[in-house]
């Protein structure tokens, strides 16, 4: 089995994996970072979104061996010193989550949106979320949360 090494949430990690091991399974099973979820097998639902070399990506559609040397940030790496990231705080304030299963991917995707577009409109937020499916919220409060989170990130 090959050994793969990368930086996850600022820490160097390495482990033996099969070539077929997906990044999401590496995170969940080798690193016990179970905040990144698997909600589909067609790379559409976005529950597994992490930041891969600084950009949002679906960790269910990247092989762990492709992540050799990569910088990965997961939902567990977003809050700093026990303080919620402004986007996390905005999701809480605006009730942008219910069952919580899609939430990590939603938040990671939203943070990447704001990196690309500091002040997104409602339509831009809705369009950006094409790759993140939520079954609980009807997206109404997610959209509100992301708009509020964007503002907070700009402060």
């Amino acid at each position, binding site marked *: 089995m*090959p050994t793969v090494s990368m930086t996850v949430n600022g820490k160097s990690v390495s482990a033996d994996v*099969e*070539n*077929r091991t*997906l990044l999401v399974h590496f995170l969940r099973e080798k690193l016990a970072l179970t905040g990144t979820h698997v909600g589909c*097998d*067609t*790379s*559409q639902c*976005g529950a597994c*979104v992490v930041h*891969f070399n600084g*950009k*949002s*990506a*679906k960790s*269910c*559609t*990247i*092989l762990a*061996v*492709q992540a*050799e040397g990569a910088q990965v940030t997961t939902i567990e790496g977003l809050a700093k010193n026990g303080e919620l990231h402004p986007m996390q705080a905005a999701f809480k304030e605006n009730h942008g989550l219910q069952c919580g299963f899609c939430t990590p991917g939603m938040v990671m*995707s939203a943070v*990447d*949106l704001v990196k690309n577009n500091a002040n997104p409109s409602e339509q831009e937020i809705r369009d*950006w979320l*094409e*790759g*993140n499916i939520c079954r609980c919220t009807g997206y109404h409060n997610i959209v509100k949360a992301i708009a509020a989170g964007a503002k907070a990130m700009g402060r």
Partner: protein
Amino acid sequence: MYNFNFHRPNSVADASKALAGGEEARPLAGGMTLLPTMKQRLSQPSDLVDLSQIAELQGIKASGNGLIIGAMTRHADVAHSAEVKATIPALAALAEGIGDPQVRNRGTIGGSLANNDPAADYPGAVLGLGATIHTNKRKIAGDDFFKGLFETALEPGEIITAVEFPKPEKAAYAKFPHPASRFSLTGVFVAKLSSGVRVAATGAGPCVFRVKAMEEALAKNFSADAVAGLNVPATGLNSDIHGSAEYRAHLVTVMAKRAVAACR
């Protein structure tokens, strides 16, 4: 997913060797189609050859009047490239509409073209602009590249290295997305080039195709009205629960009108 051997070459030459070495070896570009297919156990390559570390496949550069885009350039990089926006804004806009943001951050132009999914967007741009595919062996005209459902002119072991796009006078892409998959149910790319007008339809048929009658009409009168009365035959077009062949044929006309109206 079945297991496989994994290679990560640093040059096209090494990639080519690795591809020749495996019985069912396949190149891995962005992986946005190949990996989901493998997860469903619908594809079982013996070897995957990861092209992401090959510098010569990267980057966007000017070429005469047009652009050369490296095969491993991600959709998001095409969409956000100042060079592409200035030279062929329709291409940047098309790239911005592929899949979702996470797919755009990983998926590549070379991977999309080599896969030739009938509902992919890039084949519309390549055929619609008359682009040229560069491989490690030769240059292939866009008109000769797409051979049928998931079929291209690529030979075993042949790797797309770049795509060369001419700068059009004006161009636009209009797409009606598949409600579930968000691929193109029908998309039409229209370009007015020094060499003439080209109209390419993707999503509608088993493979991207040119709409000659519309090209001729637009050559005489480049306006939405010129294509409004022109319909492609429904025979042979794709049909599924989200769009019959007849509906797709109709959408070719509607999207062509909208693309012409949006041309700039």
